[in-house]
């Protein structure tokens, strides 16, 4: 029982990440009909917004410390961040410590701008092209984006920690009457889960309760008719692309304390997020979210020693196994619509 509760908790934050990425992918599928292989790269760029923010806040000048020497035996140059010299080490240190949440402020405009640029500059010309071409061009773009990131940040994972306030973990077990240390859950993962809920809720509310969202939903259902009604659906779709990019980017920013970002993390998430989207059903936003959490939690279950000892290696294939079972029993995934991406 306690082990199962523990794995549900662990599945929640993993599922949050899957759900956020899949949500953005589905928005693009559903509205634009484009298979976006660069979506993982958007997640990665979001994560590197956090790295960049950390670097910006940590911008330093060097101060020679004559008491120490560097590896060549010369006097050591100590790097002092500007913010620490401006606001004093206490406040400055706190600002640097909070660089990941602060990076959200930067990530939103950057990601939206990137999304606009991608849609206007590239994707727009591929609406009428076969999916194979869309895959190839966005895959090429993903490679280019990640190579650019690699050029500036290197290939090593970069530590971007959460604020100290969220260090350590909360003991849920004690709350529920178990022994201490049985069900523990890091504070930052809780933050991530809540953050994901807010974003998902925000996107749904936006689509559900605004006129803009209504038009977009109508466009997803029948693009041609909406166009015939004289509504400029293309411009709205550009905005949707920016929104999808921002969702992926924010998912990336907040994930950095859990997973130290490196330049190919987008590719690692890409395949998985496609599986999530398809299991959820093409073009269905609730499906994507549901499938994200479902796969996240089931993957956590499969990692349990009790299950691994019965079926070794199950944790490596569970996602794919579930995808196969669901697609064979429900032809269009959990909540897919008929006719979308079936030919």
């Amino acid at each position: 029982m306690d082990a199962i509760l523990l794995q549900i908790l662990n599945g929640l934050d993993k599922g949050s990440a899957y759900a956020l990425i899949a949500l953005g992918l589905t928005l693009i599928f559903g509205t634009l009909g484009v298979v976006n292989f660069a979506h993982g790269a958007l997640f990665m760029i979001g994560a590197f917004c956090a790295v960049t923010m950390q670097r910006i806040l940590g911008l330093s000048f060097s101060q020679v410390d004559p008491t120490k020497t560097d590896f060549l035996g010369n006097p050591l140059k100590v790097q002092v961040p500007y913010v620490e010299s401006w606001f004093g080490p206490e406040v400055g240190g706190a600002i640097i410590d909070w660089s990941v949440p602060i990076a959200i402020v930067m990530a939103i405009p950057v990601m939206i701008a990137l999304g606009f640029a991608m849609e206007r500059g590239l994707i727009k010309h591929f609406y009428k092209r076969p999916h194979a071409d869309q895959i190839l061009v966005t895959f090429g773009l993903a490679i280019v984006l990640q190579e650019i990131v690699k050029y500036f940040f290197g290939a090593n994972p970069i530590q971007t920690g959460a604020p100290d306030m969220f260090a350590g973990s909360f003991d849920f077990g004690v709350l529920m009457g178990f022994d201490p240390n049985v069900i523990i859950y890091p504070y930052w993962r809780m933050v991530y889960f809540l953050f994901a809920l807010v974003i998902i809720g925000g996107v749904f509310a936006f689509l559900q309760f605004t006129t803009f969202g209504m038009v977009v939903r109508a466009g997803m259902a029948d693009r041609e008719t909406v166009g015939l009604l004289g509504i400029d659906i293309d411009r709205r779709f550009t905005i949707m692309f920016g929104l999808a990019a921002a969702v992926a980017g924010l998912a990336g920013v907040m994930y950095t304390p859990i997973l130290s970002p490196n330049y190919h993390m987008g590719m690692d998430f890409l395949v998985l997020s496609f599986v999530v989207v398809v299991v959820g059903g093409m073009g269905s936003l609730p499906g994507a979210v549901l499938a994200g959490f479902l796969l996240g939690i089931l993957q956590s279950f499969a990692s349990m020693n009790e299950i691994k000892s019965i079926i070794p290696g199950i944790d490596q294939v569970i996602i794919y196994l579930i995808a196969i079972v669901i697609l064979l029993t429900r032809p269009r995934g959990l909540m897919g619509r008929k006719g979308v991406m079936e030919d």
Partner: protein
Amino acid sequence: MFGLSSKDTRFLLIVVFLTLATPILLQPFPEGSSLAQFNAGYPDLMQKFAIFGIFAIGFNILFGLTGYLSFGHAAFLGVGSYTVVWMYKLLGYNVLPGLVLAVIVSALFALLIGFISLRRSGIYFSILTLAFAQMSYNLAYSVLTPITNGETGLQVYSNDPQILMGENSPTSPHLFGIVMRESTQFEVGGWLFTLNNGYYFCAVIAILAFYLSLRIFRSPFGMMLRAIKTNQTRMNYTGLNSRPYTLAAFVISGMYAGLAGGLLAAMDPLAGAERMQWTASGEVVLMTILGGAGTLMGPVLGAGFIKYFENIFSKINDGVLHAWFAFLPDGLEDLVVALIHPFVGKGWHLTLGILFMLVVIFLPGGLVEGGQRIARLFRSKKTKTAGPGGRNRDHQPKPAPHVAE
């Protein structure tokens, strides 16, 4: 001839000639010149061209004709490799039993996966094949280590049974005594040409594979497959069950992949799990689309293009760049090298990504279309009717309709 129209026969003969002359055609620069870096006429790369050509030709039978986009073909490549290495371990270094078995095993594997995956179409089919291939990869890398030797890759050990090994049998892959890695080298002037046994073995099989795919393209079966791509629903309404045809195409392309995987192990007796990874599946998709899906030559061109980049561009380091531009004044030399540096050596991925985008944006039909455009330009100048590029036009991909309804 060969049951082909005269146009196709001529086409086939050109392909045969190009394939056999590859060791010479790919060495355009004399040894020792600074451009020799771009020569590709060494055995390993030529073998890769032929083998991945076969892989892509097979993939094209499924994707180019039926439109079913499989994202799991690398699984068959891996199965083929493992089969051949296991035959080395059990029987001996003759490649023939392994290759035959590789085709059979991959056919069975493809039958199983195809039977299940083809119950769905579109992206659902793609994800099903991807899921099967990734499962194979993950298991081969870890849990199945006793069979696959995991990350290290399956290889032959001296204590393996090898029951058919005689006293004087070669100790590396061979075909009845013709050792694959042996070559004949000859030089003419500054040029050095390497004629490698293994390459010619692959080349002959590649030509046969190409011939077979040509026959399939021209057959009623091929016509049926193209009908499935054009409009499956309409086909079903006419009372035809399309599933057996797609399944047959899937199995055939799986066999091609198994053969290619087997040949990889026949040239180099080691089978690694990463051959089954999704990136390897993605690579063959890219090769086919880049070259021109649905065309006969396109996939082969695409395969050559990608392998060339992987092997030639990744080797250009700063030292080579400095050597090239040594004639420039120092400051300018450094500047030019600094400008090119991000695109070669460790940056070869970047160049490949940019080229993918450029090709797709400007040449929707892939490299074959590029060739045709050049040929048309050439023809319009010379006002000749039968230029070399015109022969494939009838099987160019037709733009698929926009599907997000």
